[in-house]
């Protein structure tokens, strides 16, 4: 059972590359790896929690009112994550800005609740939430890395926001940031990088 969820979440139904859900944060925050990881982990948390909150009550939710109820639960969970990040790392919170609260509107969360958690029991829903989120996180990390290296010449920029000030040395400056290919750091660069990833995925699927 869990194998199915791993395969779907990471490859076959990958949220970022196959379902193309949640494109707004995917494209907007992935200017570096740190942002990608942070948003990805936040999304994993929200997806796991919302899936295991909805799954037990799925038989009591009236069909006609399910979307508002789901959204209400997700909004509550996102608020928790939002306040937690604010408490744990203020600079990271400032860097991610509006995109943490916007996880509420991220289609992928509602889509998994609607398509999976409202039809399955709690444990598979937990796995589904985790691996779907993990699949999206991988996409965010790859996008973040590519855009950061090409656009800004750095790797792991701002990583100390995430794991503490003493790890600031992890930031690698590959070349002077004024020589960077600015397009990669701008929104069109995100679209181009994402389409390149989708191209890669389709090529691999075709080979099989």
């Amino acid at each position, binding site marked *: 059972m869990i194998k199915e969820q791993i395969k779907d979440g990471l490859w076959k139904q990958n949220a970022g590359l196959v379902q193309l859900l949640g494109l707004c944060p995917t494209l907007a925050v992935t200017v570096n790896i740190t942002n990608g990881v942070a948003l990805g982990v936040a999304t994993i948390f929200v997806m796991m929690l919302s899936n295991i909150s909805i799954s037990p009550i799925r038989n009591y939710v009236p069909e006609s009112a399910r979307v508002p109820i789901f959204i209400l639960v997700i909004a509550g969970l996102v608020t928790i994550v939002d306040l937690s990040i604010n408490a744990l790392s203020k600079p990271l919170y400032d860097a991610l800005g509006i995109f943490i609260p916007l996880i509420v509107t991220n289609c992928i969360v509602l889509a998994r609740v609607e398509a999976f958690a409202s039809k399955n029991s709690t444990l598979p829903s937990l796995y589904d939430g985790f691996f779907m989120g993990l699949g999206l996180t991988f996409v965010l990390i790859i996008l973040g890395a590519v855009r950061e290296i090409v656009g800004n010449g750095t790797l792991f920029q701002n990583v100390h926001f995430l794991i503490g000030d003493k790890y600031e040395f992890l930031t690698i400056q590959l070349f002077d940031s004024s020589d960077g*290919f*600015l*397009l*990669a750091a*701008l929104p069109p660069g995100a679209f181009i990088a994402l389409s390149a990833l989708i191209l890669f995925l389709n090529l691999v699927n075709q080979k099989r």
Partner: protein
Amino acid sequence: MAIIDSPAIKERSTVNMIMFTVILGLLPALFLQIGFFGYQILGNLFFGIGFALFLEAVCLKLRNYPIRPFILDGSAFVTAWLLIISVPANIPIWTLLIGIFFSIVVAKHAYGGIGSNPFNPAMIGYAVLLISFPKIMTNWPISDGFEIRNFIQFSQFFSIANINEAYDAIVSATPLDQIKTSLFLGKEVNALPISLSTLSSYQMIAILYFLGGIFLVYKKVITWHLPLSLILSIYIFSGLLHLYDQNTYMSPLFHLLNGATFLAAFFIITDPVSSPTTLKGKIIFGILIGLITVIIRNYGGYPDGIAFAVIFMNICVPLIEKFTQPKVFGYE
């Protein structure tokens, strides 16, 4: 006996011939550019066009198209040429190649090749370079006037050591850029750092673009609608601003002779693929590009906005054509 369908006399006007005439129209201005800005532009043309043709061949191969006829139609050649004469002559070669890549692979072949590209490929390449490398793209070599020796020196370009020399050249912003900066700093038009009474090198090149464009209209490669509507539009809109306040807005003639006005009017917006085909549509297209250009030049962050105006209006072409379809005779 061979039986021929009518028309019995066929005109030999192919894509190939059109592109050849376009290049012919661009040649005089190129001659002047080399004289003013140095031989490096010849090297740019050599490597840039070579790379463009190479990418074109690779894309055609990948898409299972016959390579020879499409390479020979000259469209990649002209695209690369237009991009190269739009960028500063002292651009590092790798930067230029990135622009060529975006022109040919992304703007042209990713959208379906010649005939299907919604955007002008040369302008996509230019816009990518301008927003990605603003420092390189706004520094033109300083011209000491027309120098014959630039033509003799060009063989030096092929020695590898000279490629990096570009960084050491003395550079400055274009007049349009300088004026924008000065006006932004609060200076008035009569206290500007450049002389407005004599023709600058940029203006002489612009005049040759104008003459080359007239040649294209004469040869019936392009019609007069697009160029005239763009030129009049820039003249009228910048003229209105100039009438409103002569101290902060440059004269309409300045706007015509600087930046890419004539180059765009005759050679860029007339791209048959990405511009409207209806008559009214062409006029609307030209007027709106002029309006957006004047707005960007006077209020925007970039010195010249023609590339952005062209790309923006390219997206509007389907809409323009939808509303300007001529009535078919006999239908209400």
